[in-house]
């Protein structure tokens, strides 16, 4: 038996260094918290977690008081309940907490609501209603203030930013956003400012967010316990009872962050990081959090477009299929079937990519299909980054390319890991780097120290290979690059491919870069960058389809269909399944389960352990040896990397300005 403390008359073991709150939580004892943010240093700001140490002692904040042997703690004594009630009352009287106006007998509801409308421009009940931690505590402790006067708000609503709204009237100054900004994403854009009853969360000299160092990771939005920080696009539209929440995976880079997608009326209205654990542990970057409404862009195509009379005109799928089949016949008759090719951006599921590959193989007689992504692998869990004393970044601007990985690096740096940066250019992480080198040849690793190397896949790191103390890792720029390699689509020289006579372009390469006789573009958006296309097919993407994906750690995971695809859009697997059938292959079904179990797994000799139904439980690691069967060229052209990210973000409302600044074009 180790050292123990008594909580609510029961003895519990604890370890030195644990706080009272941690011991209680571990044992399922409820203590309310507001300012506490897991994974960061406790601040003890809100005092709601106070507990009784004994009648002779003042209550202590359990989040920041270490457990000590012999403590006798009461978590819900009458004195504590009364104190908590007062704390909540004090938080409630300052600000527009219009969920509770009736609870305050002194407030005149009409006057109060009038004030709220003047401040907020809307008389709606607070946007966090139903999810607000303060509100639920007010219910729990039966707050019905009868004595305290309302305190007016000092600072006006900050509505200038396109993505994040700041409502100072609903801020309780718990400081969770500051902790998220300084200890989770380590951007340090916001801080506590001023003092006493004029205290405020400030960004860079008390300026609006757009004028600060903010990079729009939105970590603060996610941790705000009340309605003070909200996503502007869905303000008053995210009532918890109207919203359906589903877990899914981010559409952007190879980390494959787990996300919670909130939908309402078949439309995504909000995305949060899912705190179920690896890889992202609740964190997200600006792309993952705000980059979803390209799905609802006006320019999104919902019908096939066919060139007739020099202009692209809407058509039916049947017409489009017929033209494709005719053209394939014509061109392979004229130039041979190998003059048909395909370029693809690995943003589609394994099933989509497999069907596409099958079709191209069928019509061109060869695997005339490629993407531009280099082969990468991230060998460790992202949370293990902090275990390395030395982190070496080679040629990568990771804070822009894979921001969540950069979060882990900066967190490790806060805890004492040293960052060595090898890069000719200045990057966002340069200011954290203890050692900055221009070239890899200057880097002399010590054979006694373990290094974690994260490199840009374009960089030649062969001089570091084969050393047991150096772990070499890189991250893909697209979400299913590893999956593309897995189903047999490798890195190809795009320049050769662009000159083929008939090209299927499933990427975001502008059509004027092609030199073809017949160009089929498969892309969500239209006509602007693909004006030379002869035919455009509108695909359904991401959460509009079910499917499996492989992330940079080579974990395979299954994604649900969350929203219905718009208009006449079709998934890639459906499009190419139908085209395959039209060109004479008997494809029985094109459901993801059938393609995965009966086609991909059979093709690649994958075991039953990763049967489609088993993937439902969670991601499965793919063994290393498997990828060796495929030739792995890694001569990626950097110009093409992150091109789709930019295109997608530029089609998101409010995000384009940030995307322009924050997505590395790879110059």
């Amino acid at each position: 038996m180790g050292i123990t403390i008594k909580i609510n008359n029961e003895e519990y073991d604890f370890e030195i260094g644990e706080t009272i709150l941690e011991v209680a939580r571990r044992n399922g004892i409820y203590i309310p918290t507001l300012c506490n943010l897991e994974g960061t240093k406790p601040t003890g700001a809100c005092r709601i977690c106070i507990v009784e140490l004994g009648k002779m002692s003042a209550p202590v904040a359990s989040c920041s008081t270490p457990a000590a042997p012999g403590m006798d703690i009461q978590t819900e004594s009458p004195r504590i309940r009364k104190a908590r009630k007062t704390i909540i009352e004090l938080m409630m009287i300052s600000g527009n907490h219009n969920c509770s106006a009736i609870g305050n007998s002194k407030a005149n509801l009409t006057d109060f609501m009038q004030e709220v409308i003047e401040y907020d421009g809307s008389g709606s009940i607070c946007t966090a209603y139903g999810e607000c931690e303060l509100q639920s505590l007010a219910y729990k402790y039966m707050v019905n203030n009868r004595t305290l006067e309302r305190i007016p708000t000092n600072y006006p609503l900050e509505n200038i930013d396109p993505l994040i709204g700041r409502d100072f009237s609903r801020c309780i100054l718990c400081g969770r956003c500051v902790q998220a900004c300084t200890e989770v994403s380590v951007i340090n854009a916001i801080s506590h400012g001023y003092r006493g009853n004029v205290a405020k969360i400030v960004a860079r000299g008390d300026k609006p967010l757009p004028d600060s160092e903010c990079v729009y990771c939105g970590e603060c939005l996610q941790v705000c316990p009340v309605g003070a920080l909200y996503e502007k696009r869905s303000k008053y539209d995210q009532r918890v009872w109207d919203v359906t929440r589903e877990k899914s995976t981010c559409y952007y880079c190879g980390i494959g962050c787990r996300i919670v997608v909130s939908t309402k009326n078949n439309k995504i209205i909000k995305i949060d990081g899912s705190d179920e654990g690896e890889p992202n542990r609740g964190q997200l970057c600006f792309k993952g959090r705000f980059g979803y409404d390209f799905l609802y862009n006006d320019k999104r195509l919902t019908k096939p477009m066919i060139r007739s009379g020099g202009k692209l005109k809407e058509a039916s799928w049947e017409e489009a299929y017929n033209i494709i089949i005719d053209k394939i016949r014509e061109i392979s008759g004229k130039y041979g079937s190998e003059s048909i090719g395909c370029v693809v951006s690995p943003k589609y599921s394994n099933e989509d990519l497999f069907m596409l590959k099958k079709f191209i193989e069928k019509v061109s007689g060869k695997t005339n299909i490629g993407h531009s992504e280099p082969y990468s692998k991230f060998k460790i869990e992202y949370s293990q980054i902090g275990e390395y004393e030395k982190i070496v970044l080679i040629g990568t601007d990771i804070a822009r390319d894979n921001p969540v990985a950069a979060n882990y690096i900066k967190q490790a740096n806060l805890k004492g890991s040293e960052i060595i940066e090898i890069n000719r250019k200045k990057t966002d992480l340069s200011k954290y780097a203890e050692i900055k080198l221009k070239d890899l040849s200057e880097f002399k690793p010590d054979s006694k120290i373990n290094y974690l190397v994260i490199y840009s896949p374009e960089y030649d790191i062969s001089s570091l290979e084969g050393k047991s103390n150096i772990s070499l890792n890189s991250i893909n720029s697209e979400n299913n690059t590893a999956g593309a390699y897995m189903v047999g689509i490798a890195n190809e020289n795009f320049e050769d491919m662009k000159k083929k006579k008939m090209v299927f372009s499933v990427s975001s390469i502008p059509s004027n870069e092609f030199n073809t006789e017949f160009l089929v573009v498969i892309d969500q958006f239209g006509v602007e960058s693909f004006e030379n296309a002869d035919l455009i097919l509108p695909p359904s993407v991401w959460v509009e389809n079910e499917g499996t994906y492989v992330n940079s750690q080579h974990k395979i995971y299954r994604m649900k269909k969350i929203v219905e695809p718009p208009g006449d859009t079709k998934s890639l697997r459906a499009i190419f399944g139908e085209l395959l059938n039209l060109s004479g292959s008997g494809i029985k079904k094109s459901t993801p389960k059938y393609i995965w179990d009966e086609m991909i797994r059979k093709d690649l000799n994958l075991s039953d352990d990763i049967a489609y139904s088993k993937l439902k439980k969670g991601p499965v690691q793919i063994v290393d040896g498997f990828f060796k069967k495929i030739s792995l060229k890694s001569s990626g052209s950097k110009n093409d990397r992150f091109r789709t990210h930019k295109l997608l973000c530029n089609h998101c409302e409010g995000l384009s300005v940030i995307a322009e600044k924050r997505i590395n074009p790879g110059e």
Partner: protein
Amino acid sequence: MEEKQNEIATKEDIQLLDSIYKQNRDKDSIMIYLQKIQSEMGYVPQYAIEYLAGKTKTSESHMFGVITFYSQFSTKPVGKNIIKICNGTACHVGGSKVLGKKLKAMLHVDDENPTTEDRLFTVQPVACLGCCALAPAMMVNDKVYGTLTLEKMKDIIDFYKKEAENGDI
């Protein structure tokens, strides 16, 4: 992004910041730097915040938080003479509230803009000067004036005005 407040750092300003930084580097505390900057420059300008943030790897917003927490720092230029008017219990009972109002009216300043246009005075309310026996009291720079009346206050202000005219300060 690069929007600066109206003041722009001159070469001399940067030299001054450099020397302050070099002299106090061993102490490794942003408080020390800020105190030096406040006393040398009379306030902490935006460019000084940017300069220090870069040198000390502290974020600008954190620096701003520190500056606005302590009343010894100011982000706006302050006057040559700083008048601290005591709001402590004894002074409050002695009528400091009225005196403070009159003083502000006399100098045409308010809480938002506590500095006179000629930058001769800045009025700062303080919680207690620690000389309750002299209530109501105020402090001009390092000198305490006790048992204030309206007349006495006028005389004190006139004295400092005259001093400035004669170029004594």
